[in-house]
């Protein structure tokens, strides 16, 4: 009878699937996981529909790469790269 070692090795739980929103490629959709900003910035994101679990996709970039147009819950909005960095998403 084989006896298995009870000690399980816990790997680093860090989730490598999540990325900041500014790194989501054009045309791709992701699910919002977390909003890192606080205060008024955070409020503004929530008011625009950027809440955990919503789907967000990248419509297009502007010529300079900034701002970026996102489709959030049916509305298209523009966010600066610096703002998008504070939103953590999981690509579908």
């Amino acid at each position, binding site marked *: 009878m084989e006896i298995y070692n009870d000690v399980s090795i816990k790997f680093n739980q860090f989730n490598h699937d999540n990325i900041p929103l500014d790194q989501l490629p054009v045309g791709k959709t992701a699910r919002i996981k977390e909003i890192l900003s606080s205060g*008024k910035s955070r*409020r*503004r994101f929530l*008011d*625009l*529909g950027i809440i955990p679990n919503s789907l967000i996709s990248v419509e297009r970039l502007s010529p300079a790469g900034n701002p970026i147009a996102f489709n959030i*819950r*049916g*509305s298209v909005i523009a966010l600066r790269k610096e703002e998008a960095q504070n939103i953590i998403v999981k690509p579908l």
Partner: protein
Amino acid sequence: MGLTCQSSGLSLLKDKFNISKKNEEQIVIALAGNPNTGKSTLFNYLTGLNQHTGNWPGKTITNAQGNFKYKDKEYLLVDLPGTYSILANSQEEEIARDFICFGNPKLTIVIADATCLERNLNLTLQIMELTDNVILCLNLIDEATRKGIKIDTSKLEQELKIPVIPMVARDGIGIDVLKETIDKIVEGKLQLKPLKMTYDDKIESLVSEIIDILPEYLKENYNARWIALRLIDGDNSILESIQELLNEDIPMKVEV
């Protein structure tokens, strides 16, 4: 000497909001909505040349007010800045909030973009939490149809319990229905009890506690529940607004 809101009626509107009523009978209506929903189009359609623009006192944000008449009643329409919410994230939102909460318009018209209704409903629900007399106008309904978006307006009305009017402000479609609805509400023929948000037990009990310690005049004249919720939110600017608007000292610091 502090003025109570009731005693200063017209002068409060004038001093704090730069709103000039023609006379005591003129009915004040606030026009709110997200930016780019056609608020100005509706405003211009209703008021024509009978409008003037200025600034909200102390701010660099434009204030437009205009008059119109319907069935022998005179109305003063106040165009609020376009906002995504009234939770005071910005000056525009503070203005919209202060006017609806303390300026006591008889009615608030929320104009929504039918092509992105969900986002527009955020503001609508917030306003419904603040005041009962709300009419929702679904503008740009032609754009929505063009995009293949169909909205069940009667179902929406049932859920929200406020009038929902499909509209194409640019062409004047729906505006007669709007005026008729306004008239019915003002005449008392239509009583509105909009859908209200309720929160979990912990928050609701906090709300009750706070309402208990709010001054009497606040409870009598304003939406105490709404003020309590804003305090729980951590919005201290609401206390500042109260102090400023009512010339009253509020010797209380709320710790939640």
